[in-house]
């Protein structure tokens, strides 16, 4: 089974990019996670293929989409920093050590423009959300 997990804080503007993707998907099982911590391991338990979508800040153009394969090498932690101590990158490393990584795993990063308080995403990020939805819904 293939699942998508959108990660983000719904009150931090573009940080919600992953959640927006999860909400829009219609052809694949999708979960929203506002924590993005160790609970991810429970969400992906039993899935063969897992796609995580999260906002990133890597000093790229807002709306840039980058796909990572963390089975090969750890995610860059500065790019996927969490407002809480344990985020996507840390959870993947924990799962690697506990033997709880899914057989296939990819992480879509969507470059954020602003992470300030707010409940809407900026236009560049909204466009990227649509592109990622298109790709994942028809994969």
């Amino acid at each position, binding site marked *: 089974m293939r699942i998508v997990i959108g990660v983000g804080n719904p009150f931090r503007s573009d940080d919600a990019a992953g959640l927006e993707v999860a909400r829009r998907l219609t052809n694949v099982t999708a979960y929203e996670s506002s924590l993005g911590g160790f609970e991810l391991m429970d969400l992906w338990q039993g899935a063969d293929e897992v796609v995580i979508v999260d906002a990133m800040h890597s000093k790229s153009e807002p709306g840039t989409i980058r796909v990572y394969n963390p089975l090969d090498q750890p995610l860059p932690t500065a790019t996927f920093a969490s407002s809480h101590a*344990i985020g996507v990158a840390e959870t993947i490393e924990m799962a690697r050590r*506990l033997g709880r990584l899914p057989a296939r795993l990819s992480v879509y990063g969507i470059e954020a423009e602003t992470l300030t308080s707010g409940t809407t995403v900026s236009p560049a990020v909204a466009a990227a959300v649509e592109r990622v939805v298109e790709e994942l819904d028809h994969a």
Partner: protein
Amino acid sequence: MSAEREIAVDYLARVEGEGAMYLRLKDDEVLDLQFKIFEPPRFFEAFLRGRRFQEAPDITARICGICPVAYQTSACNAMEHAADVILPAELLDLRRILYCGEWIESHGLHVYFLHAPDFLGYESGIAMAGDHPDRVKAGLRLKKLGNHIMTVLGGREIHPINVKVGGFYRTPATEELQALVPELEWALQAAIDTASWVAGFPFPEFERDYEYVAVRHPDRYGVEDGRIISNRGIDIAPEQWREVFEESHVAWSNALHAHVKERGSYHVGPMARYSLNFEQLTPLAQKAALDSGLGPTCSNPFRSIVVRAVEIVFAIEEILSIIDRYRRPAAPAVPVVADGRIGHGVSEAPRGILYHRYEIDDAGLISDAQIVPPTSQNQLSIEDDLRHFVPPHAHLEDKDLQWQLEQAIRNYDPCISCATHFLDLTVERET
């Protein structure tokens, strides 16, 4: 002639929130020492003004994602005390289960992922997981159980939505609580094993003569309500808090320092609760403590990890015994009218006493709020610990001394986000 040394930790790891530590010493003499909280202030006490008194539990819960139940409970207590309402025993039992769930979740996180790596020489819980996968799996499962209990009682695992002044919106059916029992039974043994595991860690020889302050309940281990007592004679109702304690501002911290008037620092949290209320712990928790080499009191802060493990045993045993006698209450809540009153509430957050005080106007709106979280109260004690710890350990290399000092701070499981909820911000300008 020896030179001065400086040890500065700009960003403390494995604490909740943003803090730093600065130490300047010459030989074994501490010249300057600061436990700095630089996370920005969050102004919660000001947000509360003008809000209805019924909103305080949900607003203050947002101060912390680790201990929201503590905020909800102290706020409910304040409003209920203001209205002279005492909840029926069954509703207090449910509040206690919810609160114990939070202890399991918070202590589980700290024991396994924040504190154990210090003793075993790992930089993080993740690094530790490679060598101790079964321990880490057990820690994750315990923490998940705590979160699950909060979901069953509170509607969701963080910032519960089912708590209200006067009780709950909905009470669980007997079967919903019974369904928790098998996992709780696994957890009880896992917690006992945890206590025995952490008891074998290497602890620095270090004892302090603390003034311990904790909530005391007449007939059970103080968690969700009670009086405030200390080992130096304090024995007061929550409404007397301001007669005994006061808060002050220091330049290097965005959290107010609390102290006993005309006496100074005091210590809240697991070690205080344990040392003041040991005889009220459940039987298996007492046994786990004694088997772990603790006496009926504990004054080595590095052993707080053992005390937390013992409190996990207690919390599980307590929930099991409440579930055993549970009958679904006739009503999920009782009416509370606090208009025109002043209310004070305390409870034992995982990190120690959390005090709330509210003034409520005749229309039922909050006109003044004061919130004193445990980490604010422990700041002076943390600094005192460091000041006492440094001289006998000054011979250590900087990096080894720094490691142990950071560990000494994590003994308190400090929650810096909680501590910086405060109102007053002092800005100094030079002209």
